[in-house]
């Protein structure tokens, strides 16, 4: 029989340390598959975050450089400016990208840095144990919003992806979800597009993936994936928010 689905080459042979049903490793796989398909493994430099994916360098079989919490896009800028021919991606959680890293993310996008950000939105701080994230939804209970996020006290879920889509330096911006296999494949298509846009030198690209954190949502993995559809996608509408290659054609 023919093997039709197996581990991508750009991943090492290490078992993941993530919780059962965590979205991070699915997204790792998508990125690795894209790297394989584009044949760019030997040109890629990845920048994992401080967050549950901090150990991503143990999984990706490409050059990887850790970043301080939130500074992925600044570190990425350093790499890209120093080596414009390399392909740089940052991999960041919602806290990393949209709280402490707000300025770095926004300004890298605004400068049109040709880097790609994979933005894993699980609406919570996973690694540190379930605190409120900028993307925590109204009413959602976390350890630091024990009464559920209240708009008048903790503010609103921050739509950082939508903000970035408004920036002229951003070339490709999309939001996806891992809720179903079809959606997972759609996310992969956008990740591929994001890398391609970078390779064409068109500017900053970002793919947000709504991703489950069963542990901190305190539900089973299957429930968590359902919540992606029934809850998160309502707050964070899916879609391609910006694609300069489309505009060019249109």
């Amino acid at each position, binding site marked *: *029989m*023919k*093997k*039709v*689905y*197996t*581990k991508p080459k750009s*991943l090492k042979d290490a*078992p*993941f340390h*993530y*919780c*059962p*049903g*965590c*979205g*991070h*490793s*699915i997204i790792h*796989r998508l990125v690795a598959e894209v790297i394989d398909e584009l044949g760019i493994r030997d040109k890629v430099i990845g920048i994992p975050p401080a967050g549950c994916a901090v150990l991503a360098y143990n999984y990706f079989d490409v050059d990887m450089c850790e970043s301080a919490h939130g500074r992925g896009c600044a570190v990425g800028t350093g790499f890209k400016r120093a080596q414009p021919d390399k392909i740089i991606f940052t991999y960041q959680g919602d806290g990393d990208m949209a709280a402490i890293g707000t300025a770095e993310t926004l300004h890298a996008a605004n400068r049109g840095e040709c880097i790609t950000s994979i933005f894993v939105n699980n609406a919570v701080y996973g690694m540190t144990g379930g605190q409120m994230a900028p993307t925590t939804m109204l009413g959602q209970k976390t350890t630091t919003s024990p009464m559920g996020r209240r708009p008048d006290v903790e503010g609103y879920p921050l739509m950082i992806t939508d903000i970035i889509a408004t920036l002229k330096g951003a070339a490709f911006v999309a939001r996806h979800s*891992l809720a*179903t*296999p079809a959606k*997972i*494949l759609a996310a992969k298509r956008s990740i591929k597009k994001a890398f391609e846009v970078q390779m064409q030198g068109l500017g900053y690209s970002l793919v947000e993936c709504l991703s489950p954190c*069963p542990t901190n949502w305190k539900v*089973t*993995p*299957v429930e968590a*994936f359902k919540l992606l559809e029934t809850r998160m996608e309502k707050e964070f509408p899916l879609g391609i928010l910006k694609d300069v290659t489309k505009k060019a054609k249109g």
Partner: protein
Amino acid sequence: MAANGMIKIDQNLCKACELCINVCPDNAIKLSSSLNHKGYHPAEFVSERCKACALCAIVCPEIAIEVYRDR
């Protein structure tokens, strides 16, 4: 019509999240009654009806599933 397929599940990678079970259109997977060395009841392939659609592999967070097709 449907291809004849099968999957291999690396039982030691599996964390029993049941996502594969949940997406398999043919109910070809279930949890094993034995424990793996992580303490999970891992998923196991139980059916001949698999059409190698790979949905299970696409959702498996542990890349524990390999999919095979006869053609």
